[in-house]
């Protein structure tokens, strides 16, 4: 006779597969990129560089 599945087993099988979080290097890379982007914008705004591109 086949044992019925316990509720725990059933819950485990139907649970949506978990998504692994982003590795640490991705988070560091993203943070560095955001900081560089902000620095770039600030440097251009302070120096008025955006309007200088037309030369």
């Amino acid at each position: 006779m086949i044992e019925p599945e316990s509720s725990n087993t059933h819950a485990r099988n139907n649970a949506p597969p978990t998504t692994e979080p982003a590795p640490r290097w991705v988070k560091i890379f993203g943070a560095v990129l955001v900081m560089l982007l902000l620095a770039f914008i600030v440097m251009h705004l302070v120096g008025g560089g955006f309007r200088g591109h037309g030369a």
Partner: protein
Amino acid sequence: MTFSPWLRKAALTAHVTSSLGWFGAVAAFLALAVSGLQSADPLKVRSAYLAMDLTAWTVIVPLCIATLVTGIAQSLGTPWGIMRHYWVIAKIVLTVPASAILLLHMRPISYLAEVAAAGTLATGGEHRLRVQLIANAGAALFVLVVTTVLSIYKPRGLTPYGQRAMRRESAER
């Protein structure tokens, strides 16, 4: 769409050649930009900015576009995909803005070449723009080194989309 092994190697060869060519051309551009800023010889300064304009339009821009196109083709035509691995996305996130900034700075490069050709680039003239070109070339070299490191080391990490695609593919097998 997956490339045949022959096409995959051809696309990889085109991508590596164009990206390293881009790196070399930017390094030459940086050397010219430094020389143009530091030299006291008016002829050398004039030659530097004329050569920079020519190099930028005929070598750097075509290689930049070739790198982008072959890189995207590589991603789409191989199991690496374009949105599956964080390292591929990181390369795109670096390369696309770098290309946009390059195209945005083509006008100042041509402007400096025109001023140099007219012989009106006095010592110390357009100093800020000349320094900016050095900074841009240095930043471009840094970005290209980072993208090369990412390509070689391929740091681990699947995006949520990549994880779903992987699960779907293993369920189909």
